[in-house]
């Protein structure tokens, strides 16, 4: 692997990897005493490979790091669900293979393709390859299932860091403004929210919000401007922290009540008020309430997209949906108490709270930092300007009001909603059909085989 002298982007990614893995391993370590040490090895291996990926200077070494980190996460997801982990591994391998193919087209024996913008002909292939990791629309088929079925610490890492590696690749890839990518970003932001509103599994809901929030990032980085890239990077960090926190709190609910289904929850606000508080920190950040990290990053993203009015409108709508969806999560997950809800069965240790507190503190820090120090390349006072505050407050207020007016509309359903992943099994059967024919053609008849060989010989004569 070829390394480079790290720039700010790489250093930020490395710091993020360390924080996310630290929080995840704290949470994982609190689960059971015996054997937990050994469970932590793949987590930290993931962290190592993630750091190597962030340091790569060529696309080849980037791919090597990417695949190694995929493998280490695969070993963690296996503990959650075997079939899901296989889907995850194969999807990621397919993405990395497209990326490898594209990289080989741009490389030669003299030199590898350096990490950065690529020739325009290869750009679509790179977007597809990275898009599997970054869950671009249609290529996101692995994400909801993997995020919801994986052990919680893996979900947090997946949403917090693994998908960001694809985004990091896109950040390195995009040098010029790319309108198709902007469109994809908006579609992701809206699609993720709409799907999230229809979910009843807490972790699946969060997974769709990951897609939605990645849409914000993709839209920001598609501008190719320094401000857009800064906005994307800032939202990468902000989203990783608050989404990690939200996944850990959803995992805590599962640990306490043995279920992630919003239909069966609703007393955690009283049983574990601290957990509810931590959840509120994450939820307010993802909804973009003023003075949170989500608020800051959305302002930066919007100022990067000032000349794209419709895009901003789309993102506002996605913001409204996010608020609605987290009202639903908060209400049905923590607050809608009625006597028939089951008692908590599990127990949350100090380590689990520590992990969530770590992420909550980091979220608060990331939100407060730019308000106190001019870290971001914005005109002074933008973050505290009344217009910005009003802009940010409108979707939040509107969301809460809508939720209060029409609670029945957002009640968690009992049915699952179809997505691209439901097409995988029929598609697989369709593809397997010709395979059966291929197998049946191996009949064991020597005469047929030799006839085939002679046919090939004649074809070769003909072509020479």
């Amino acid at each position, binding site marked *: 692997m070829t390394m480079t002298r790290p720039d700010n982007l790489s250093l930020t990614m490395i710091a993020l990897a360390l924080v996310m893995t630290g929080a995840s391993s704290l949470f994982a370590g609190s689960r059971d005493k015996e054997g937990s040490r050994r469970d932590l090895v793949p987590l930290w291996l993931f962290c190592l490979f993630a750091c190597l990926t962030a340091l790569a200077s060529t696309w080849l070494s980037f791919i090597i790091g990417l695949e190694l980190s995929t493998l280490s996460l695969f070993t963690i997801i296996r503990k959650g669900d075997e079939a899901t982990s296989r889907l995850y591994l194969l999807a990621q391998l397919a993405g990395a293979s497209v990326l490898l193919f594209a990289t080989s087209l741009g490389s030669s024996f003299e030199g590898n393709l350096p990490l950065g913008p690529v020739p325009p002909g290869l750009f679509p292939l790179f977007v597809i390859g990275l898009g599997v990791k970054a869950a671009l629309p249609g290529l996101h088929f692995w994400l909801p299932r993997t995020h919801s079925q994986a052990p919680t610490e893996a979900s947090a890492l997946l949403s917090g860091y693994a998908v960001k590696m694809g985004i990091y690749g896109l950040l390195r890839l995009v040098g010029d403004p790319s309108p198709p990518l902007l469109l994809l970003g908006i579609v992701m932001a809206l699609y993720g929210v709409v799907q999230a509103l229809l979910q009843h599994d807490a972790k699946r809901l969060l997974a769709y919000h990951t897609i939605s929030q990645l849409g914000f990032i993709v839209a920001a980085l598609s501008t190719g401007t320094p401000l857009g890239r800064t906005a994307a990077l800032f939202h990468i960090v902000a989203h990783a922290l608050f989404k990690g926190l939200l996944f850990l709190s959803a995992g805590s609910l599962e640990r306490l009540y043995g279920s992630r289904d919003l239909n069966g929850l609703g007393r955690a606000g009283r049983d574990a008020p601290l957990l509810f508080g931590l959840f509120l920190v994450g939820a307010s950040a993802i909804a973009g309430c003023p003075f949170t990290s989500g608020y800051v990053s959305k302002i930066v993203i919007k100022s990067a997209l000032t000349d794209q009015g419709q895009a901003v409108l789309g993102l506002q709508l996605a913001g409204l949906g996010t608020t609605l969806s987290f009202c639903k999560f908060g209400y049905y997950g923590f607050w809608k108490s009625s006597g028939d809800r089951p008692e908590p069965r599990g127990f949350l240790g100090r380590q689990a709270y520590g992990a969530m507190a770590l992420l909550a503190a980091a979220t608060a820090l990331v939100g407060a930092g730019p308000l106190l120090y001019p870290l971001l390349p914005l005109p002074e006072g933008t973050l505290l300007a009344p217009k910005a505050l009003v802009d940010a407050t409108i979707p939040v207020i509107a969301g809460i009001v809508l939720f209060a007016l029409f609670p029945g509309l957002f009640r968690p359903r009992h049915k699952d909603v179809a997505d691209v992943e439901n097409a995988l099994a029929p598609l697989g059967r369709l593809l397997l059909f010709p395979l059966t024919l291929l197998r049946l053609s191996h009949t064991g008849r020597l005469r047929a085989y030799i006839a085939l060989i002679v046919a090939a010989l004649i074809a*070769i004569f003909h072509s020479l």
Partner: protein
Amino acid sequence: MNPVLAIVAPFLAAFTIPLFFVFRKKWVGTAVILFGVLSALTALFVAAGGEAVTVMGGWQPEVGIALVVDSLTTAFLILASLGFSASLSAAAETFGYGPWRFYVLFFLSWAATNGIILTGDLFNLFVFFEIFSVAAYLVVAYPPRSWQAIEAGFKYLIFGTVGALFLLIGIAYAFMATGQLNMAILARVLPRAPEATLSVVIGCLVVGLFIKSGTVPGHFWLPDAHSSAQTPVSALLSGVFVKVSLYALIRLAFLLFGSADDRVFFVLLLFGTVTLCLGHLMAFQQEDIKRLLAYSTVAQVGTIVIAIGCASSGGVTAAVYHAFNHMAAKMGLFLVSGVLAEDRASRDIAQMGGLFRHRPLFVLAFCLFAASIAGIPPLNGFMSKWFLLVAAAERGALIPAAAVVAGTVLSAAYYLRPITAFFGPAETEPPHHRPHPVTGAIVALLALLCLVLALAPYIGPLKEGLLAVGRDTVNGARYIERVLR
């Protein structure tokens, strides 16, 4: 060292082992081991001796049989000695020294393999191919107890004979057209032959080698032979035997075909791609672990044929590098799965549950080898795949390159099945547990070899050697000049 010694040493073993059996039964085991060491060392010394050309009996190259050592020969001599030594050690543990006939056949095929690699004469190549094939048919059917093995050997015999027939026709036409059999001279005069003759010669030789190497549509014998043979033999078949035919393909493609016609490389690319796809798709559907490995071998043969079809020094480098990687990983896979299948007394993947707790190291080695074959970075299979992809991109062969990367995903999918089974729960405890110290040691060495090969692009001399193989092989004029000096 005279290159002929590398052929003589295993022949000597093949002819004296029966004598030992008749006169000194107790010494057979010692003799087998000593001859194995001797043969491997001779081949390695010949390889280490650097470039050399010897014409047997002091004749001129036009009449005598030339033995040529160049960088391609060196690479394949090393590959063959590693593969044969590993297989011999495993066979000694599996069979013991009682079945002396097996060792006779084993050393015969070794001698013929070295002969194919060393010879510079087209008819001599055919003769060695025949010795090699006859030994291989019998080795596959050994021990002649199970009817599947006999059937597989018979199938192999039929296909091998058809392949040999095509080879012979091609060689005969070449001889009739030019009056020459020395490959260096043929490389000079063959392009002057009429075009129709040329296409018949090349077509026959290519199809003959396709059948011998297991390229589609000559692959039908391969899964049967690989899966029905005894474990050390399967490892040898996959590790060395198919590579020998691919060596001949590389040699002839660049010496005889390339100067005459560039279209033959298109044929190689086409058939390589078909082979790759068919191998992966068929492996995907297997329930028998050794058949799965065998079809995976078909796919890897396709990969190497694609690499040859790139018609560049980079392509040959990739082909040779991949041949080494596949040898190391696939021999390991066959040895491990042989041991595990013996423990379960079944080759059915569904029956392979709970073997991780039973033999953790073997299963971990299986994972390493499988990841290497599938091309998971940063293992050796990934590195050679990368070389191949770059060579294909330089040639502009996009579809074969896309097939190669798609093959990664497919092979990961089908290798995950046995691995999942190994780590999964078991319904019953494995009934057998025979210790396999020698096989274990060989598997460990092969795993080490995989790791070393993975580092090869970063080790100066190894990388330089690999690139030199490509450069020298593509440069047919250099070969001709050295032989006819």
